[in-house]
């Protein structure tokens, strides 16, 4: 793999003390039943993401939400590992472990494992599939649609556009892109396949009603937010900024009224899954300044490789947004202090840090970051869990 220091876009090796090895039990113990658990799997230059939703009060069982399946083995392997643990004690009785699976766009590094996922054992537990409606000539796309045809009618198919919203228990899933304008250009070759990506904004918790005896109260909890950028590029983000205008604090009556209606900055997010493996075509300084993420996650091989992801200019945009240098010449902080984490990062003994899990509480600021030390071709072993302890 790539050697640290040989290229400026290779993530710096990190001290082992930042990531003490704690193992499976500590990882499982860090999760309460009402927590959201997000996994960003290390699949090289590709995306595979799994959300374990909080356990439902009715049956105490979690549902899951999947965004992209780049490879055939890694996600099913993780699910099999989790099944039977307190995180996923069983498949729900209704069979729908996955109320929603998203195929962000039909590139192999996002749907390469989707046909097997939908066709295999876990596919029986999928209720709905979102894909952008951009037909592609690849084997992965054609076989994914064949799997969907064979699954009929148990998998509902949807082509969402910006604004489409689905509530998955306590998680609100909103589509930022593609906009309707981009969507209507798909069939004309007028849209880059990457710009067809389904980019998402997630809000957790989505609950707004406090239930008492003979009483309900509308509440506004502190929310945790994600933006999952898929492979969206400039055309996509420019439409997003039109559909979801940034609302900077402003005392003008109009701005206050709009802000009240929408709640808060529409694109601000705590956790930013950086688009297109931190390609220079997918990230701009302006975009990251609007999002203001405290955590930016990069899924790529980590310097070099087919496209030299992550691109230095994209990383610098993220760093600059987190640590502006206009008025100061202070030394740039380390990436981990700026909240930038890479699936391809390594610790100083050379071990890969690999897949990332983030545990979020709906009621407190708890945020625990775990790493599983897997290479892209390796399965995830919970025993290898290391807790990020800055």
């Amino acid at each position: 793999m790539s050697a640290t220091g040989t290229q400026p876009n290779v993530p710096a090796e990190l001290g082992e003390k930042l990531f003490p090895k704690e193992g499976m039990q500590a990882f499982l113990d860090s999760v309460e039943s009402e927590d959201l658990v997000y996994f960003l799997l290390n699949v090289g230059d590709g995306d595979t993401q799994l959300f374990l939703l909080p356990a439902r009060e009715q049956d105490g069982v979690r549902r899951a939400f999947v965004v992209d399946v780049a490879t055939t083995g890694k996600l099913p392997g993780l699910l099999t590992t989790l099944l039977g643990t307190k995180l996923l004690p069983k498949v729900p009785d209704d069979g729908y472990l996955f109320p929603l699976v998203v195929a962000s766009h039909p590139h192999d590094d996002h749907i390469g494992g989707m046909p097997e996922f939908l066709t295999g054992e876990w596919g029986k537990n999928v209720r709905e599939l979102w894909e952008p409606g951009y037909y592609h000539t690849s084997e992965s796309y054609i076989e994914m649609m064949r799997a969907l045809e064979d699954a009929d009618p148990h998998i509902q198919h949807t082509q969402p556009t910006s604004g489409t919203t689905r509530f998955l228990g306590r998680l609100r899933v909103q589509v930022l892109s593609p906009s309707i304008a981009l969507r209507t250009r798909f069939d004309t070759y007028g849209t880059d396949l990457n710009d067809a990506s389904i980019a998402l904004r997630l809000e957790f918790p989505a609950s707004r009603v406090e239930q008492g005896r003979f009483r309900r109260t509308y509440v506004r909890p502190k929310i945790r937010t994600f933006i999952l950028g898929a492979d969206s590029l400039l055309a996509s983000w420019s439409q997003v900024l039109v559909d979801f205008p940034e609302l900077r604090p402003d005392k003008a009556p109009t701005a206050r009224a709009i802000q009240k209606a929408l709640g808060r900055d529409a694109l601000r997010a705590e956790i930013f899954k950086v688009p297109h493996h931190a390609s220079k075509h997918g990230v701009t300084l302006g975009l990251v300044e609007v999002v203001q993420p405290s955590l930016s996650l990069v899924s790529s091989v980590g310097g070099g490789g087919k496209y030299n992801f992550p691109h230095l200019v994209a990383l610098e945009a993220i760093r600059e947004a987190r640590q502006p240098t206009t008025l100061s010449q202070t030394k740039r902080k380390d990436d981990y202090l700026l909240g930038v984490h890479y699936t391809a990062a390594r610790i100083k003994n050379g071990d890969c840090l690999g897949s990332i899990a983030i545990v979020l509480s709906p009621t407190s600021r708890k945020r625990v970051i775990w790493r599983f030390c897997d290479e892209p071709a390796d399965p995830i072993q919970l025993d290898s869990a290391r807790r990020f302890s800055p």
Partner: protein
Amino acid sequence: MTKPRMKVWQPVGLDLPGATLKTLSYVVVDEVVEEAARLSVSAWPRVDAAGRLRFAGEERPRSVRSDLRQLRTFVKSNQAGGGSRPSRLRMGTVLAVRVDKSVLPKPESNEEMLEQASSEPRHPNEWMEPPVYDVTGAARDKAKEAFYAAVAPTVKVGRRA
């Protein structure tokens, strides 16, 4: 259980015997970033009784990095069907060509991950054997069929509205 019978896919406009088609690979320009392309290489597909394209299903497509300029030159020099315009290589273009798979890393293997991390693209001469046929039009039709058959019921022949 016996495997369902399938036929070799014969793209419209590609007049080759089935025995020759079987030796070809289905090569898709899957991703393009500036002059770098990722090619998705599959065994030549078959067609099932429902007329659907079916790939071998035993492994994922192989992923090969290519320099788009080299690929363009290679295709221009070796494209069959004389007189036709050279292929426009963009995302979704599909080439039918004989491939030496033995030099390509296996899908989801450590070798593939090492190749992902390597900065050197593979020259088409190393793994593609001329001639090259452009079957993009026929492949796009099959992709559209796959899409619509998945999202809406098919209709019987002669029952079109």
